[in-house]
């Protein structure tokens, strides 16, 4: 087990996967809507294609976040340990990073759902 907990196999990048997915989802949704309304539809035009696209982005984003979050949760549950993961051991460092990853995944998922709710209520470019 110790080998798999080596520092070289750990990465801070995994911590920010979920929020980065949120950022991509957010940017993609915004850009899609902005370009559609500026280039392809009149002000009162329908945004139906945008809604479908954003729905697709949302499913993809939630899948990615779910995967990252589950991964984090599993690392948090390694062995028999409880919070606050504050021991000076590779195990607790591993659990802590997993725990923080899982929490960030949760927050990112909520933020993605918030954003997706926008297309539930809006039907045109006004």
């Amino acid at each position, binding site marked *: 087990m110790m080998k798999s907990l080596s520092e070289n196999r750990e990465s801070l990048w995994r911590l920010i996967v979920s929020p980065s997915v949120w950022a991509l989802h957010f940017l993609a949704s915004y850009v899609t809507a902005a370009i559609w*309304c500026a280039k392809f539809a009149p002000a009162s035009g329908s945004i139906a294609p945008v809604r479908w696209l954003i729905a697709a982005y949302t499913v993809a984003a939630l899948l990615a976040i779910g995967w990252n979050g589950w991964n984090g949760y599993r690392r948090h549950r390694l062995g028999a340990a409880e*919070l606050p993961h504050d021991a000076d051991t590779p195990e607790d*460092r591993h659990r802590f990073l997993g725990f923080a990853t899982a929490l960030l995944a949760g927050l990112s998922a909520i*933020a993605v759902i918030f*954003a997706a*709710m*926008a297309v539930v209520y809006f039907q045109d470019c*006004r």
Partner: protein
Amino acid sequence: MNPAPNDPEPPAHTPPLELQRAQEDRLRRAWQKPAGWRYWSAVNNTEVGVWYTATAFLFFLFGGVLALLIRIQLAVPDNDFLSADRYNQVFTVHGSVMMFLFAIPVFESIAVIFLPQMLGARDLPFPRLSAFGYWCFVLGGIFLCGSILFDAAPRGGWFMYPPLTSKYQPGVGADMWLLGFSFIEIAAIAAAVELIVGTLKCRPPGMRINLIPLYCWYVLVAAAMVLFAFPPLIAGSMLLELERAFHWPFFDPVRGGDPLLWQHLFWLFGHPEVYIIFLPSIAIIAMIVPTFAQRPIVGYGWIVLAAVGTGFLSFGLWVHHMFTTGLPGISLALFSAASEAVAIPTGVQIFCFIATIAAGRMVRSVPMLYTLGGLATFILGGLTGVMVALASFDFQAHDTFFVVAHLHYVLIGGSVFPIIAGCYYFFPLLNGKKLSDRLGRIAFWLLLAGFNLTFLPMHFTGLRGMPRRVFTYPAGMGFDLLNLVSTIGAFLLGAGVAIVAWDIIRPKKRQPLVPRNPWRAGTLEWLPAMPPESWGVRSIPEIDSRYPLWEQPNFVRDVDEGRFYLPDAEEGKRETLVTSVIDATPTQCLRLPGPSFVPALAAVSLGGFFILGTFYLWIPALVSLVIAIGVIWRWLWNGTAVIPEKPEKEIGLGLTLPLYRSGPESVGWWAVVITMLAVFVAFVSLVFAYFFYWTIHDDFPPAGSQGGPGVFWPCLAATLLLAAWALTLLARRANRRDRAGVFSLAIIGAALLALAGGAAILAGPWLTGLDPTSHVYPAIVWLLALWTALHAATGVLFHAYCFARRAAGRMTARHDIDIQNAVAFWHFVILTAVITVAVIAGFPLVK
């Protein structure tokens, strides 16, 4: 606490007393402050950080005086205390000073002082960079504040919207703002680089990522945010200055520009900036609360979530400042959703603080008073924030005093109160003296009462319809009494600030020293004996816990007696440890540079470029820039990548570490990559501008004679630059294999190709006759080409530098920091070049 089984432990016996004294003498000599007038050449965090904080605080007082002038003017209807024009200058400078010269610098300056102490490091990895940042800040700040005394200050509000600031304000005020703050933002980015590398690479051995003080998490997040938030503003400022100085029409609708682009770029900076201010301030609270609850923080992982989560979400809020600009409803809804979501992590950390206080036994103290006052105030501001995040409410409240009230609740509650709490808490670490409890309490109640008296009524003034930034109002509109109350409150607030200021500067000679660790805190910054020595930490400890002072037995004794790492300065050099990112395993003993005037000289000469540019004195400005490049060259030549006299050094506890490392193992390489990341973000902002214009125009790029830079020259440029990049890589390899001939050929070839590539990218718009003043399309193409050419030219400087270093024997096959950093820089050059060519030559083809 549960130390790792194979951690090195300090030796059980006391080192001989003579040895301890000798070590202390050597350390003291190595870290001695320069005396006399040379004092100003100091670069150590304990000096630079204190100057930085004090200067920021002076700017705060200056901004505060301007606020009082505003309140005097608005106290009664139809007042003529200030003219409309003077009033415009006063509120513009007030907002700009508070944001750019107080709130951001003070976060960085406090971190410069305390981050090394919390990390048990002797200093941050680039002391001269901190000093450089400080001198840039002072120079830019004085320049900007001074302008108001000559009736020449900017008048466009702290967010400088064009076309007001591009067409209708001919004086130098707007130029001062644009160039002065771009200069200061360079300083802010320099400090951010320092703080990121410091947090990731200069922790004490054993301080794994799950053990670092929460303050460091917050600072890491805020500094990373600076890298992504400031460059869009620098890019925007460049566009606006090009329009003002050279008539490139980026924001002029007649020639295809759009003022709304400024708002996007400004708020892409401006909203994250609010959190860049807030997070490091709340970080101080995260250090104060456990101390006065006398227990570890509750929910460490949750607070990390809050810091990182806020850092991300805050980039999805910028359009909520633009709800009334007529964007499609769907766009507003997306930003409204993110603005509501950011309340979640913000709330989480506040619940953690409350839980910590509830679970511990709270010790009553002045820092705690400010902490609680700040949290209560901030929560009120947060609640009105949730209100204005709803687009429909914002339509009503936009540009009224309601927004003024909201932002002051957030910033004063979320930043000023915590910073004053930090003043009272950390002050003993500066000179071993405490601030006065009595004055602190009096000031607190004045501040709290004055603040609420000033800003609570403004909610109602705003809801009754009073717009912000008007210099007066007629009587009988329902604003009179509310404004008068606000003015009275502002003076109470001012009195509170004056008392705090007096408490800080009053002579404390006769006051006794406080005992060591006066608040009985658990984290490393409280290690020093009183008064603290300038070496920072006597020996760099092995960390087993989040609160080593509470939980590690004999900890203070072992540090003091030099039983841990680096207890000595045998060679009389300043040194600290570099450790790995995740587990803080020691990897290098880093030699740090000592006092020098070079950073100040570099700041003055670079400042000359910006300041002379403000007055359109382009020739002297360019001369100043050349001098700056020369000074920086000299700085790097003598002060960086120095080949040590021996490859390794024993640092105690049986550990021997290398003195020189290069590439990703060296702190300098990280600094280059992080800095270039920020530069790259500025470039992305320009690319964003290109596509922004595409979305608003039916015909972009326009057909016909303005058709574009063609395909041939841009593609030739990309090919030449790719070849230059490949030769740079080859040069690195040849150097590593010690093949001098191949190295020289490769590096000279790379430089020539880079020059040719830079020329070719400019040849595109030049030979196709694009006129940047005619329309926004040629302007943005020219700008992207110039940006790339400038990168290539800088890349050539890197080539020349490496060539010279090797010729002078300062770079060898093993000691190859310079060429490694040059390669890192060239990765960004090539990325920039390829994207530029794809955009300016490729996009017109696919369109």
